[in-house]
């Protein structure tokens, strides 16, 4: 049965690749996942500390402002503070060490702006704050920090106001805080080139100017620059955040880390946004390396699998070929044994009647020699018939003897034989005959062919048979090449008899060693020569092979052991 080597190759190759690649991929994938998780956690942690640090700075800023305001409000009397000259001196002291304050004002219980120091004197001096939202809030709580608003001055700003109780009345000290101070603190969180930080109030309205996403008093959104227009997508709403919140958000095609934390002293929420592409660059690099290494690993595995499978398949092919040859030879040997047994049986059975026929014919001949019969009319016919009977008995006997020769089991002799001499001598028998039909016998003997121990006459019989066949196969005009060769590895002597004859059809090749197989005309050959040769060589421990190509010629090869 012919194996499908290609299929086997693929099966084997894929099995190796499968069993190596799957674990490799699993390991690499889980390593990558682990690395990714750890790294992302690290990034999240640093983001958390970043946002909380910023929050603490802002908190500290507000606490300091509030403390300062309380101190000023409680160490000065309402009387003193409503004196604008006095207030101006105080503002200058406050302003000397910090540019956080833009202006300062004193408002009485009824909302009247009694004193003001700042750039909007003309605009704000006459204002009554009685109906403003923050005026009531500060009266209720004693302290008020506003969101950013436009107010009377129509400029975004925010204020800190404290209420002071003095005897049976109360008054309010109000300052406007420079927005730049808060911006400065928040902007320190703009770490990467794509990161952003801003503050929103409880209504998700921007309190600082973000790097990318909008302006004061707008809803935070990130802009997307399209070819023809500018679209903006709102950021997630963190206005309800009550504790530090970290998340990775993917929306509208944007991937971002967000950290949000409420600022204790105000009602604001600090939001930091980081771009994962930037923050996770080492991870992406790691990913590249891992992909590269995985690809390299796959390539090595695939190449290795292919090479290994090639070697393996070649070995299997070789073994199969050997097995085929062996089983062919075994089959041939078994066939020979069975056939020789049958041949011997038939020969014996035919021998006895043949002997009787021969004797009867002999007897007839004896009788024909007597004179009275010699005178009969048909004497000549009788005589000829008896001669023919004897002639054909002789022919039959020859066949039987050949057949028995094929079947005989004589112990082969052990003699020292010079193979080249043997070939030379045997070829010599036929040289004249060959020359007559213009066939050249070419001798190519190797000098290193050793003396072997075998049966000279039997080998000679085989070689003679092969030479005869070769000459018959050519007919006339051609070359018979007799060559010898020594295989040192196997200690075998090889004898080749090659002819330039008509060759043997492929169908016939496996039958030529069978007894009675002949391509010669009926009566010309018994078909026993090659089968006898085969069994002789087999008995001598050798091998006999044939190669042939129709129209080119035939080579018979004999391999004989040195001992």
């Amino acid at each position, binding site marked *: 049965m012919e194996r499908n080597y290609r299929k086997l190759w693929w099966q084997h190759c894929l099995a190796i690749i499968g069993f190596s690649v799957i674990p490799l991929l699993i390991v690499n994938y889980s390593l990558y996942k682990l690395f990714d998780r750890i790294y992302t956690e690290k990034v999240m942690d640093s983001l958390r500390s970043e946002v909380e640090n910023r929050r603490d700075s802002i908190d500290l800023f507000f606490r300091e402002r509030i403390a300062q305001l309380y101190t000023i409000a409680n160490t000065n009397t309402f009387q003193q503070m409503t004196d604008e000259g006095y207030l101006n001196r105080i503002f200058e002291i406050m302003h000397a060490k910090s540019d956080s304050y833009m202006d300062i004002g004193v408002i009485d219980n009824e909302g009247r702006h009694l004193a003001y120091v700042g750039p909007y004197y003309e605009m704000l001096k006459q204002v009554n704050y009685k109906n403003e939202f923050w005026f009531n809030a500060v009266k209720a709580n004693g302290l008020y920090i506003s969101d950013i608003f436009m107010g009377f001055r129509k400029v975004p700003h925010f204020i800190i106001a404290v209420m002071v109780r003095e005897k049976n009345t109360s008054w309010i000290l109000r300052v406007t805080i420079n927005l730049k101070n808060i911006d400065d603190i928040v902007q320190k969180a703009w770490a990467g080139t794509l990161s952003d930080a801003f503050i929103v109030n409880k209504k998700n309205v921007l309190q600082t100017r973000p790097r990318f996403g909008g302006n004061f008093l707008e809803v935070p959104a990130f802009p997307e620059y399209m070819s023809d227009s500018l679209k903006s997508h709102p950021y997630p709403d963190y206005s309800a955040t009550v504790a530090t919140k970290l998340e990775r958000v993917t929306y509208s095609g944007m991937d971002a880390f967000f950290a949000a934390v409420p600022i204790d002293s105000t009602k604001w929420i600090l939001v930091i946004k980081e771009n994962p592409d930037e923050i996770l660059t080492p991870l992406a690099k790691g990913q590249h390396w891992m992909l590269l290494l995985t690809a390299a690993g796959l390539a090595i595995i695939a190449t290795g699998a292919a090479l290994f499978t090639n070697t393996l398949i070649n070995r299997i092919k070789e073994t199969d070929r050997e097995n085929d040859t062996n089983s062919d030879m075994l089959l041939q040997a078994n066939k020979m044994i069975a056939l020789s047994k049958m041949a*011997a049986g038939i*020969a*014996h059975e035919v*021998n*006895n009647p*043949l*002997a*009787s026929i*021969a*004797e*009867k014919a*002999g*007897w007839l001949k*004896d009788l024909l020699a007597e004179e009275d019969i010699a005178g009969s009319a048909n004497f000549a016919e009788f005589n000829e018939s008896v001669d023919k009977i004897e002639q054909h*008995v*002789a022919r039959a*006997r020859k066949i*039987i*003897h050949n057949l*028995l*020769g094929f*079947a*005989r*089991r*004589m112990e082969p002799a052990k003699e020292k034989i010079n193979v080249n001499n043997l070939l030379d001598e045997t070829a010599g028998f036929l040289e004249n005959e060959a020359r007559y039909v213009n066939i050249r016998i070419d001798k190519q003997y190797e000098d290193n062919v050793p003396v072997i121990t075998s049966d000279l006459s039997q080998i000679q019989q085989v070689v003679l048979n092969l030479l005869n066949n070769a000459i018959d196969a050519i007919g006339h005009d051609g070359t018979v090449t007799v060559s010898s060769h020594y295989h040192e590895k196997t200690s075998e002597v090889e004898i080749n008899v090659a002819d330039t004859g008509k060759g043997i059809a492929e169908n016939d090749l496996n039958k030529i060693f069978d007894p009675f197989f002949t391509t010669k005309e009926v009566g010309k050959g018994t078909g026993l020569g090659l089968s006898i040769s085969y069994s002789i060589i087999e008995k001598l421990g050798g091998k006999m092979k044939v190669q042939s190509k129709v129209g080119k010629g035939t080579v018979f090869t004999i391999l004989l052991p040195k001992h």
Partner: protein
Amino acid sequence: MDTLRVLIVDDEDDFRETIVKRLNARKIQSEGAASGVKALEVLKDKDFDVIVLDVKMPDMDGIETLRHIKKLKPETEVIMLTGHASVEFGLKGMQLGAFDYVMKPAPLNELLDTIGQAYNKKRGLIH
């Protein structure tokens, strides 16, 4: 000169009888025996110069018969008649004292030659 006396031992009737007839026609006094046992019986009463003995016979084969003959009449020469494949038997027969072996089917001339030689040996002409 005494007449040459030959005993042909073979289980093939046609073969045996024809050989006997042909030998007798050549002035050789000959008889046939269809088996080893019969041959031994005949030998008890008569002497022969040469016995032609088929190797392959039912009941008692040629080798066995040869042993008995050599015990009974050691001076009688025996020619073994053998098939080609049983050359070993021929050779074994010679070890046991047979004069020669002839392969069957043999032309009569060949057999006559051998019989003649055996007879000569018996008469001490050759050794």
